[in-house]
């Protein structure tokens, strides 16, 4: 069989837990990792007679997501009940949105391997999360913890516009960066704050859409990629062997690298959505919408563009810097402190800073952006050369001293005095006539001389001047 003959078609549903203090319809806290059933109010239990009251933050957060994804905001929208029985949903229905979600018809543009890609956003709706159930093997019971029940979510539904696992991962990374920039979700995939379901189907190139399977609750970018690739392969193999893909929900087993049918009781899914009579229509005024629009921060795509146009950074550099808002902030603060050589600052952050710290922790990195700017300023005015700068950087990791203080205290200032360099060069030429001979035949030998001068001057010589003097002297006619 050949995957070449087949097209993969993927759409995503992403659940983002909104970063609020309390639940969507109750005042219970949303803190993760607390003892079971200690973050619960009567509304979350679905006790008789309780009424949901909407958390004011939720609407604003959902609108921000919608605006960032260029959606139409439905200024009148509705909550609806999605009815089903499951023990982690005490009311017997989930409050969600059906016919009139808060946002529709958006799009997300991103880059993959230098190519621009657009994915349509079908809709974004607000809803409440369910509780969490666990199953004890060998016992006839399941256990339910309702701490998560009622946590506010937005579900972001994409069009089936993606054709490979790599596209899905790029889409998700961009989407995650956006919700983090917006400050509406902490993006923590392990804790389930950012969860992806992928609808995967395959078809012969150009043919009608095939039957899709839903891959549910995959909690890392790597697993998403592996799960989609496995699932597409499975479907192609099945069809080529004469079988039919059954529409179903599948889970991914990362240990075995396979997807498998989620075992559920056989039942028709019929959620019988209807408008929730407990919650009047949500009406968003033009003024509210404009106020939220004004609060929107600069988003990754805009930053990338600005970094390229204002600082002449490459596509790659701008992508790395803009991918995480903390890194972007670090870069911009550093540029504010020393603005002459943004490309050099970018290189130092990408190659050195991000080797020492995780992107998300860069805000707490011991070398603050201002300290880094101090180091780069010394490089720029040729107080130190690039090699010594790396040494100073290493030292900055373990002390609070500024680059300048370290350079002064350790005598690391670059030697640009041509007299001092010349005397080293003269001695070197005198002591190594054989190497000078070799140089005449093989100009690449210059590197050996540069190395020797640097070694003699403890790495502090100005490399450009060393180079000039060496070339001049080595090419002089022998006396």
């Amino acid at each position, binding site marked *: 069989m050949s995957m070449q003959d087949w097209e993969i078609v993927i759409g995503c549903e992403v659940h983002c837990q909104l970063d609020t*203090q309390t639940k969507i319809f109750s*005042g219970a806290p949303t803190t993760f990792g607390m003892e079971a059933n200690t*973050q619960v109010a009567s509304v979350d239990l679905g006790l008789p007679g309780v009424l949901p009251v909407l958390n*004011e933050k939720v*609407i604003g957060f959902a609108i921000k997501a919608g605006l960032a994804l260029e959606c139409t905001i439905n200024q009148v929208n509705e909550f609806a009940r999605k009815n089903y029985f499951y023990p982690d949903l005490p009311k017997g229905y989930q409050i969600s949105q059906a016919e009139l979600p808060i946002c529709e018809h958006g799009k997300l543009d991103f880059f993959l391997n230098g190519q621009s890609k657009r994915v349509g956003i079908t809709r974004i709706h607000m809803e409440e999360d369910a509780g969490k159930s666990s*199953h004890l093997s060998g016992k006839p019971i399941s256990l339910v913890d309702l701490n998560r029940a009622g946590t506010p979510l937005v579900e972001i539904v994409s069009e089936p516009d993606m054709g490979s696992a790599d596209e899905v991962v790029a889409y998700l990374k961009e989407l995650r960066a956006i919700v983090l920039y917006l400050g509406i979700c902490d993006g923590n995939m392990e804790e389930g704050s950012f969860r992806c379901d992928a609808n995967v189907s395959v078809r012969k190139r150009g043919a009608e859409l095939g039957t899709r399977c839903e891959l549910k609750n995959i909690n890392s970018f790597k697993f998403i990629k592996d799960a989609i690739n496995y699932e597409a392969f499975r479907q192609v193999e099945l069809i080529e062997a004469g079988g039919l893909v059954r529409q179903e929900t599948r889970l991914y087993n990362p240990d075995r690298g396979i997807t498998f049918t*989620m075992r559920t009781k056989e039942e028709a899914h019929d959620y019988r959505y209807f*408008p929730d009579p407990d919650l009047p229509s949500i009406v968003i005024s033009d003024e509210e919408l404009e106020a939220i629009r004004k609060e929107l921060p600069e988003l990754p795509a805009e930053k990338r563009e600005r970094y390229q146009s204002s600082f002449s950074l490459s596509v790659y550099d701008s992508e790395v810097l803009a991918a995480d808002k903390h890194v972007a902030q670090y870069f911009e603060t550093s540029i504010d402190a020393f603005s002459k050589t943004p490309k050099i600052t970018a290189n130092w952050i990408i190659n050195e800073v991000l080797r020492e710290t995780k992107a998300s922790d860069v805000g707490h990195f011991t070398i603050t952006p201002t300290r880094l700017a101090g180091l780069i300023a010394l490089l720029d005015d040729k107080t130190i050369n690039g090699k010594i700068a790396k040494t100073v950087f290493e030292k900055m990791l373990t002390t609070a001293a500024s680059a300048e203080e370290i350079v002064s205290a350790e005598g690391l200032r670059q030697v640009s005095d041509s007299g001092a360099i010349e005397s080293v060069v003269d001695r070197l030429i005198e002591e190594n006539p054989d190497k000078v001979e070799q140089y005449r035949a093989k100009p690449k030998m210059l590197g050996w001389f540069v190395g020797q001068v640097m070694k003699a001057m403890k790495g502090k010589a100005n490399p450009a001047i060393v180079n000039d003097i060496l070339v001049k002297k080595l090419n002089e006619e022998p006396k």
Partner: protein
Amino acid sequence: MIDRSEVVKMAALSKLELGEEEIAHHQDTLGQILDYIKTLDDVDTTGVQPTIHPIHLELLLREDVVDGVLSREDVLKNAPQSQNGKFAVPKMIGDT
């Protein structure tokens, strides 16, 4: 009258077990209700927006401030069975 299969499906969705007699009974009574509601089909609703809420109320919002958390003891008070601070329920098939 509605189909027997529709009654069976609704019973399943509501987690109800109905006997043959009950199914027949509900076929009859639910059918009557639906026939009655059908009266509305006679009204010409061309150009009329669907009514989502019959009474127009303003949506009230709450501040994002912690309030009304129950003790775990109270949360579990009505549970017929609990274990390790969690509700214990008949085993659900699935998930893992």
